[in-house]
């Protein structure tokens, strides 16, 4: 500044110069300000205007939505054994556009997965981005595939339903489809409860595509399906299946079912069907094999319905045990149609009509009872409606209203023809007899527990039930049609059934029969109900021959499993031959508590104790075995005083091993 003044003072007056410095500075300032503003502008544009879109794009690259499907709930038996569970298994899919060498890939896949090479080649030629090759493969196959590291071939995890007991209770458990959805049986019934739920969550992907969980969003929820616990016991179930299979195959039956029920609770311990269904490979079986026959199939029950006519008639005081009926020598024409008995009888008391299973005698009792009271009893017993077990597609049976019954209909329905029932209905009805005349609903599921039900209305009085049970004991313990179901040392009660099947044409009856037997053990105070039904057995079709031995086997195994078989050594009773099954109209000698001491020799100890128990006598037992060899006092002598008889030296029974 000083310099500039000096120059202007010394020479010619200086021409005023333009101050460019300021201008330059301003220019530079403006330049930088413009840059600064444009940067801020760009930043604002990117942040504020493009921001949401860019954020979305970035998240698309680094974040991904993941889904997780929960495991399907398990099915347990009453003791906690697994009946059905889901295990993780691998499924193979291909992305054809990512496959390098289609021919080589097809060859390797076909070899490892054991699938036709043509199918794999067709899959690889697909233009889709995702094609399943094989689902739910084994661990070894998955390992082998992983080792191959084939481009475009991927493994993904899925749950596979497994049934460790194979065919055990196959039809009851049902099965699931390849997508894990229940299609039959309990799997279908509890689909909603057992199905695994889906969780949705966000994961971060790194550059290699690995998924990283950054928080627990969506993963904190319980996605596993709930479990189901059945009343079945795998041991009893196996025993029932084995005996049923033997009965059906031995007598060339088409199919069969067996049921074991714990009378006290109504819990079904075993529910077997034959032919067996292996739910692990359900698709390989025929649809007829997959049927839950005990609930779905309706059949004419035949003579196993007779105890209900007797109970209803006793309840209505139409008959008593001793009332006799003319059984027409095995052939009776009613309204132009003929009713026949397997064996000819003439006059039989009511108890013997049941013991020898006379159709004519039962028809006459039914006619004496009348349609309305019988129909009413059948409805109260649960016929004509579903069992309440809530099984998918369960049949309600066929019970026509009584106004549609003619006289002949009433007669035939009395002995179980002209009525349609399911196996579960029969078992439910017998539970009324086993439970002292009060219905006890069947139970198949322990968890989830069934909602509480109102107390059931009594169907028959205790006295009526006691009388019917005593008649049913004669069927097994005397010379009745069910003596092959007799178990030494355990009183049995039961009823045989041999029903004709309707002809395929829909008119009249064909050649086929349904053989059945229902047993109650012990026969005086039933604890277990065992039922076996065989469809179209041949050449023998009698329920007492086809089914009674199976019931006996199942009952023995059940009683032994629950420690209810009597102790002691008793030689197994030889099974009566087929010819001995011819029911005779003569009464077998039986020990009863009359005026004098009866002959107890040869009786099972349990039965002898029963006879003496009625007199208030507890005898002294000597020796070992289950059969009475000698007794004191001798048969025919006067009864000793109960007090004295209870002391040692009073009533004495000597035991021996051997048969009755």
């Amino acid at each position, binding site marked *: 500044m000083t310099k500039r003044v000096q120059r202007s003072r010394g020479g010619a007056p200086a021409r005023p110069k333009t101050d460019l410095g300021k201008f330059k500075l301003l220019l530079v300032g403006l330049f930088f300000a413009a840059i600064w503003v444009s940067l801020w502008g760009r930043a604002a544009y990117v942040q504020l205007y493009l921001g949401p879109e860019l954020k979305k794009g970035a998240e698309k690259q680094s974040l991904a939505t993941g889904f997780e499907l929960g495991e399907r709930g398990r099915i347990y038996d009453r003791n906690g054994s697994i009946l059905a569970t889901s295990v993780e298994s691998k499924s193979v899919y291909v992305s054809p556009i990512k496959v390098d060498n289609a021919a080589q890939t097809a060859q390797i896949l076909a070899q490892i997965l054991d699938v036709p090479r043509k199918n794999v080649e067709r899959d690889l030629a697909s233009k889709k981005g995702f094609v399943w090759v094989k689902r739910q493969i084994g661990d070894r196959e998955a390992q082998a595939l992983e080792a191959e590291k084939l481009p475009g071939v991927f493994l993904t995890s899925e749950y596979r339903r497994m049934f460790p*007991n*194979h065919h055990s209770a196959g039809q009851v458990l049902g099965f699931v489809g390849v997508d894990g959805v229940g299609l039959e049986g309990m799997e279908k019934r509890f689909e909603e409860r057992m199905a695994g739920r889906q969780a949705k969550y966000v994961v971060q992907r790194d550059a290699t595509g690995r998924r*990283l*969980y950054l928080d627990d969003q969506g993963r904190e929820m319980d996605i596993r399906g709930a479990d189901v616990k059945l009343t079945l016991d795998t041991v009893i179930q*196996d025993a029932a299946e084995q005996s049923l299979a033997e009965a059906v195959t031995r007598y060339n039956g088409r199919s069969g079912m067996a049921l074991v029920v714990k009378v006290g609770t109504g819990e079904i311990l075993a529910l077997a069907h034959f032919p067996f269904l292996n739910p692990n490979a359900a698709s390989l079986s025929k649809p007829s094999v997959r049927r839950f026959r005990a609930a779905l199939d309706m059949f004419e029950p035949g003579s196993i319905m007779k105890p209900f006519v007797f109970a209803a008639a006793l309840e209505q005081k139409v008959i008593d045990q001793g009332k006799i009926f003319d059984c027409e020598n095995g052939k009776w024409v009613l309204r132009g149609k003929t009713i026949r008995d397997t064996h000819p009888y003439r006059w039989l008391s009511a108890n013997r009509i049941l013991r020898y299973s006379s159709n004519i005698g039962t028809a006459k009792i039914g006619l004496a009872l009348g349609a309305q009271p019988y129909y009413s009893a059948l409805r109260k017993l649960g016929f004509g409606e579903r069992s309440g077990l809530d099984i998918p597609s369960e049949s309600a049976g066929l019970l026509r209203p009584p106004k549609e019954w003619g006289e002949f209909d009433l007669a035939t329905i009395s002995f179980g023809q002209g009525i349609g029932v399911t196996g579960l209905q029969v078992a439910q009805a017998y539970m009324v007899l086993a439970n002292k005349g009060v219905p006890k609903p069947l139970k198949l599921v322990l968890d989830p527990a069934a909602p509480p039900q109102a107390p059931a209305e009594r169907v028959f009085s205790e006295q009526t039930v006691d009388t019917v049970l005593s008649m049913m004991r004669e069927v097994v313990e005397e010379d009745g049609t069910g003596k092959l179901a007799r178990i030494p040392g355990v009183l049995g009660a039961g009823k045989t059934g041999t029903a004709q099947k309707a002809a395929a044409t829909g008119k009249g009856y064909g050649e086929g029969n349904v053989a059945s037997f229902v047993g109650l053990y012990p026969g005086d105070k039933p604890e277990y109900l065992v039922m076996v039904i065989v469809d179209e057995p041949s050449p023998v079709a009698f329920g007492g021959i086809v089914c009674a031995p199976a019931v006996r086997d199942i009952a023995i195994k059940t009683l032994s499993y*629950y420690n209810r*078989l009597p102790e002691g*050594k*008793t030689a197994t009773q030889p099974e009566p031959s087929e010819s001995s099954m011819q029911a005779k109209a003569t009464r077998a000698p039986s020990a009863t508590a009359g005026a004098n001491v009866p002959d107890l020799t040869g009786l099972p100890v349990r039965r002898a104790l029963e006879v003496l128990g009625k007199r208030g006598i507890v005898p002294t037992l000597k020796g070992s075995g289950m059969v009475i060899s000698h007794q004191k006092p001798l048969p025919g002598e006067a009864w000793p005083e109960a007090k004295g008889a209870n002391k040692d030296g009073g009533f004495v029974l000597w035991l021996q091993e051997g048969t009755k």
Partner: protein
Amino acid sequence: MSASKGSLFMYFCTISGVLLLSLSSVWLNIERMDLAYDLNKLEKELGSRTALASKLELERNNLISPYRLKRLAATYGLGPVGPGQMRLMTGQDQGK
């Protein structure tokens, strides 16, 4: 003078704080990713072990299923108890 020193100090502290927070944020993010990798690895291991446990449980149930045991028992000459063959030991006479 002291006021300008004070403001300079405040400026320095702010810059240091921002730097420290930034570095912490970066370090935490790295740790978070490391943990995510570890977690991923552990979850995979847990998944495979759980799957194996279910398979072993299934196998165990298969091995103790009645039809398997029955077959095994038959090889040793064992079978179901028959009438008159049972002996109840003390304390075992209670029904199941």
